[in-house]
């Protein structure tokens, strides 16, 4: 992939992992000065018309932990720490953060001074403490990320102390989508907690906002149109885009047509088949970059029998069969034809910029059908077997196409795969409820650390662990190692343990990884915007030629 060096980025993530870059006061002042200049010439406002497939579900900053919702909210609200394009942490409302030297279970955040909310309130430590408490209390959708928090206290007007259940060296990584709101505003409008579905009432914060972010909300018609205008009193450099008109367009063809006809300036969800054509179109440019998301297959490798298989035993329990499948899959063909060259094939079920990724895990050999057939025979399936494959058809880029391609490839080695592709609302419960033998799943790693993958996909199911462990894999020894990761403060030892766990996971072939998803944004010529690894682009990053 042109212009993208995995190693370099993973290195930079590692170096940024715990070392916040301090923002220099000089640049802050320069930014303020620039903001003044720009606000005086805001007559020739730069409007950006932005389209993507779906809308934010709510503007309540803590109700939903969902990509498109966070993406829009990042323009109105701000977080303590932000995530740069390369995955590193950058200061936002916190200027500094560290683990208390006296007590390794306490995180300390220094809050930025001179920040005002859109309605004029001054940001203080009180607001931050209130917001963190709101975010970690049900019915907040963000609660799981703050499960280890025991208490949030303030220390003066600009310091917040967060006491954890134990050492939590990675906690700050969980804060990149936890927005800060005004305590006063929340109390005035009775939104001290986030939306409660069961209550059956609308929350004031669903459609009304008061953040510290670079844009103010001017108009909101859910799923139709949202208009944001630049917030003149924002503390950071003024963005070039002064007005954002955000319109969701569900149908892929219509979305592309709107860009081609000049009705929108930026399309975020570009269908892979249209990328090449858009690149050749005058007046349109396409940027692409890897997403923090992996697409892989997994299977029930533990049960005695499979529900949908034509044989009495469980073929996936046999290492030979799992190896045969790994030899049958032709990742390059999927990349070239299904993904139109827009993916990063890999054997590793995690993106390169996630801590724990290695070149060895990533490497995959050429497909070898003869060897695969031989392995199938060795395992006792000379005449093959049939099994159902479950696949979502509206969640990942060309998800159904990937499944169809695998069906063909496995057919070559005697596996008669019956594809069941359906909407994500029907697909994901199958994995959660252990009702599928063989399935496709995509997984993002918002913390940029392998522990997140282990917690949800490898650890045996129970409590907060293993919610998406559809392989039913259960290894108490490995579980203990995974649990140990959470509280390890010696980072070298921790990385070594991560590597050890990965060795075991790769050896067992719990996942049949296909690729890392690559995103493309298409825009009018003259607009510059890089792909965001979590697919949460910030319009503050947009520059015009």
């Amino acid at each position, binding site marked *: 992939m042109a212009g993208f060096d995995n190693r370099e980025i993973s290195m930079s993530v590692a170096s940024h992992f715990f070392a916040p870059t301090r923002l220099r006061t000089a640049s802050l002042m320069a930014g303020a000065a620039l903001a003044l200049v720009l606000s005086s010439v805001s007559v020739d406002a730069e409007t950006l018309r932005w389209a993507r497939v779906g809308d934010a579900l709510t503007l309540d900053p803590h109700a939903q932990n969902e990509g498109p919702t966070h993406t829009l909210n990042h323009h109105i609200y701000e977080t303590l720490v932000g995530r740069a394009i390369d995955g590193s942490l950058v200061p936002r409302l916190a200027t500094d953060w560290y683990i208390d030297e006296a007590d390794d279970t306490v995180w300390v955040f220094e809050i930025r001074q001179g920040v005002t909310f859109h309605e004029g309130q001054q940001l203080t430590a009180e607001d931050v403490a209130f917001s963190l408490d709101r975010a970690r209390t049900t019915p907040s959708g963000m609660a799981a990320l703050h499960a280890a928090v025991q208490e949030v206290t303030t220390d003066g007007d600009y310091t917040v102390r967060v006491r954890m259940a134990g050492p939590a060296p990675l906690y700050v990584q969980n804060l990149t989508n936890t927005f800060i709101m005004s305590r006063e505003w929340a109390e005035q409008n009775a939104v001290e907690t986030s939306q409660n579905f069961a209550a059956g009432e609308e929350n004031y914060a669903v459609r009304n906002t008061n953040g510290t972010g670079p844009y103010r909300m001017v108009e909101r018609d859910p799923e139709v149109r949202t208009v944001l205008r630049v917030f003149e009193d924002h503390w950071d450099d003024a963005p070039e885009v002064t007005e954002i008109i955000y319109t969701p367009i569900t149908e892929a063809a219509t979305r592309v047509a709107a860009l081609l006809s000049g009705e929108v300036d930026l399309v975020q969800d570009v269908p892979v088949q249209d990328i090449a054509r858009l690149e050749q179109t005058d007046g349109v440019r396409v940027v692409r970059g890897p997403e923090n998301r992996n697409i892989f297959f997994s299977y029930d490798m533990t049960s005695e029998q499979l529900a949908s298989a034509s044989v009495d035993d469980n073929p996936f329990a046999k290492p030979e069969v799992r190896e045969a499948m790994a030899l049958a899959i032709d990742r390059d063909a999927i990349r070239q*034809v*299904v993904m139109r060259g827009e993916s990063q094939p890999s054997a590793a079920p995690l993106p390169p910029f996630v801590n724990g990724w290695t070149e060895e895990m990533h490497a995959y050999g050429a497909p070898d059908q003869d060897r695969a057939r031989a392995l199938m025979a060795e395992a006792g399936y000379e005449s093959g077997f049939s099994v159902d494959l479950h696949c979502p058809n509206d969640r990942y880029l060309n998800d159904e196409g990937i499944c169809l391609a695998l069906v063909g490839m496995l057919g070559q080695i005697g596996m008669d795969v*019956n594809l069941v592709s359906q909407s994500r609302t029907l697909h994901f419960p199958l994995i959660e409820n252990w009702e599928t033998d063989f399935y496709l799943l995509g997984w993002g790693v918002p913390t940029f650390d392998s522990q997140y993958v282990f917690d949800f996909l490898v650890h045996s199911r129970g409590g907060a662990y293993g919610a998406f462990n559809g392989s039913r894999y259960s290894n108490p020894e490995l579980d203990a190692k995974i649990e140990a990761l959470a509280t390890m403060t010696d980072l070298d030892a921790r990385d070594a343990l991560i590597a050890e766990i990965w060795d075991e996971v790769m050896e067992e072939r719990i996942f049949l990884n296909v690729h890392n998803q690559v995103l493309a944004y298409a825009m009018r010529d003259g607009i510059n915007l890089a792909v965001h690894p979590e697919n949460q682009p910030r319009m503050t990053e947009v520059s015009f030629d």
Partner: protein
Amino acid sequence: MPRPGHSDAPSDQATAPQPSGTTQARPQDTLRRAWDSDLAYSFRTSPVALVSGVVALLIILAAVLAPWLAPQNPYSTRDLILMDGFTAPMQPSLLGNVYLLGTDDQGRDVLSAILYGARISLFVGFSAVLFAMVLGITLGLVAGYRGGWVDGLLMRIADVQLTFPSILLALLIFGIARGMIPPAYRETMAIWVLIVAIGLSDWVQYARVVRGATMVEKNKEYVQAARVIGVHPARILTRHILPNVMGPVLVIGTIGLALAIIAEATLSFLGVGVPPTTPSLGTLIRNGQSYLFSGEWWILAFPAAALLALALSVNLLGDWLRDALNPRLR
């Protein structure tokens, strides 16, 4: 034991002189009469009817003979070559294979996919129409003949049915069926669910026409006479009344066939329909629509042309049939 060269037993019998003579003459007579009938005359002299009849017949034949005509079995995942995907018509693929109408995203030969897809679309269309027809005619005959509360009840049900837009009804049936059918059978049952969903939303028209005609016929003298001599009502209905209403039923059925084929395509757009491994014409179009702007025009254009040719010719036949069967328009 049949001799070689004479294994074609039925044709032997047909050419052999029959002792009675009358049995042999009858089919020829029927043919003769059919050929001379007003309907046939109207068909022969209407260029639109002739052309659309031929086109529809060709497509139906091609669909029925798909396994012998198609260069590839597009439903056998083993035969598909993924690396041949997106090959343009008559252009060699990366692996050097040439496809007359190109290939789609899965490396499926578009021509084969159309032939097999038309098979599914026609199967769904004919079955749905047959289902609606049988249901509609039966209920219409019963309602018209019995009258009274039976008629009242059936016509109220028909009203409720008309209350609900066909497309929503089909979505509802699909949703309910998905809940009731165990997951393992959902894919194989999908096509039957589709048939029931489309058929159920269409029976009322048949029922209304048949009921109206039945109410008129049942008071005619020959029916009264048959009733008096104790002929079973079922026999009266099927032998005497039914033939009299077959004209309008046939017209509705022809147009219904085109509607059912389009309805199948529309439902595939809404995400309910046949599985993607066995695409129908509608699914092919839904899929091809994604390639409208990407330059692979053939993935959309050929299936759309096939569907248009099929639905248009059937619709035109229906149009012609309606005019031809309306005696007042001669």
